[in-house]
């Protein structure tokens, strides 16, 4: 009797911890803590959640929060695609051709270890304070990570499937689309997952250093004014955008492309 009881208890707590409730309660707890801390501090330097939400609303309706978010988001997406395309192509070639790998590997190690700030500053100095330099600098920071991940994927391609494709005289395009790409998919997923978060952090730095708009520029401006409400407002707004992309775009896309793995046996 007591055993049955204990078992049903664990069952219930398991079910609870799996639902969205725990995440929601956790977030609510954070907001509450923030609220209490702000009430105690009563300082301009720690505005409460209400004040920040009000700022976001005001800036959305009367200010240019949406425009700034849009510009930053555009830079994130542009840098992401440039980094993914170039990084994937180079990674694939390096993984499949040991000779190329030997030539490019030292460059890769240098790029991997070069601080983001150095690349950004040099890009602005050499190519001017323009959009191409900004996006190029962000992409260049991300490219080595993509290369390393995709190269790993290219090295683990199944030679048996490749042989099958050659025996059946599949065209190079068909082989790429049906045999190579699906095997690289998990590596692309990893590269883009780690990529998008790294990229948006670097985009803010690029904007702070040399762009007249975007979330990074606003943060810089408000830092000089010591306007913490605005800093938190812009941060929260952009985090919300990134979360939306994660839940509405990245995760469904990943579920779709790995659906063959989730089938029950």
């Amino acid at each position: 009797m007591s055993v049955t009881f204990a078992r049903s208890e664990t069952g219930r707590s398991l079910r609870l911890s799996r639902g969205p409730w725990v995440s929601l309660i956790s977030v609510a707890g954070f907001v509450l803590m923030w609220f209490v801390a702000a009430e105690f501090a009563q300082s301009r330097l720690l505005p409460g959640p209400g004040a920040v939400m009000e700022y976001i609303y005001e800036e959305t309706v009367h200010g240019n929060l949406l425009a700034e978010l849009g510009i930053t988001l555009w830079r994130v997406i542009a840098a992401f695609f440039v980094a993914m395309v170039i990084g994937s192509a180079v990674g694939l070639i390096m993984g499949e051709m040991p000779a190329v790998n030997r030539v490019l590997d030292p460059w890769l190690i240098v790029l991997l270890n070069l601080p983001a700030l150095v690349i950004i500053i040099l890009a602005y100095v050499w190519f001017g304070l323009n959009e191409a330099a900004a996006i190029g600098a962000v992409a260049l920071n991300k490219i080595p990570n993509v290369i390393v991940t995709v190269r790993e994927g290219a090295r683990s391609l199944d030679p048996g499937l490749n042989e099958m494709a050659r025996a059946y005289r599949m065209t190079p395009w068909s082989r790429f689309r049906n045999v190579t790409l699906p095997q690289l998919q998990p590596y692309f997923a990893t590269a883009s997952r780690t990529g998008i978060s790294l990229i948006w952090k670097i985009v803010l730095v690029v904007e702070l250093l040399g762009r007249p708009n975007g979330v990074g520029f606003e943060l810089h401006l408000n830092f000089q004014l010591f306007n913490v409400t605005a800093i938190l407002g812009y941060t929260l707004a952009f985090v919300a955008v990134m979360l939306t992309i994660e839940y509405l775009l990245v995760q469904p896309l990943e579920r779709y492309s790995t659906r063959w793995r989730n089938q029950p046996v």
Partner: protein
Amino acid sequence: MNDTQHAGATSQFKIHVEEKTHVGADGSELTAISDFDLELKPESMTVLMGPSGCGKTTLLRIIAQLDDRFIGKVEYPADVRIGFMFQEPRLLPWRTVKENIELVAAPDFSADDLDRLAHAVGIAEMLSRYPRELSLGLARRAALARAFSTRPDLLLLDEPFVSLDEKSADRLRRLLLEVWSERPTTAVLVTHNAREALLLADQLVLLAPRPTHVVAIEPVDVPQGERDPKMIEKVHDDLLRRYPANFSSV
């Protein structure tokens, strides 16, 4: 190093491997095949039989033009279409069974053809499944259907029934014969199983290992459909007497 010739409109396949060497991880060279000569009879089943590890798979890979690092020559009809059944099913896990077949099928392979072929090999219910959901036996059937869907000029089978239980293996052998006799194709099957070889072969090629070469070519004259266990045992005993090295080990 070698020379793959297109022998015009004839459907002749001539394989001549003067020498094929493997280079080991330590750089040492090992002669895998030497002085191997074989002419495939059109529209008949040639079975290459020899002990495990005697370079049979290497030979098939050379015949399929997957390996061109050898000294010798493989003569082919022009634009040869190949169907290949590997030791493992080698289906693309991220494509359904149907997509796996359609991806390599001949251009004029219609939905009706697919339906008929799927029924013939018993995977009609499995076409929309992913390979991961199939048992090894069913995956082999799908691989068999894929090999035939190309309407091959040359069908290559590399121990296609290995690691199945005897009952499933036997059912699959019968299936292979059924589909194959409907549209006789020049075929090469590799096996180390003597009874399997005697059930399927029109022409039995006995191989000796290290380096691989042909010991003898034995025709089996009874049509495959009329071979029963008794007849197979009889031929087997006869061959065992004449080629003890090739048959006693199995």
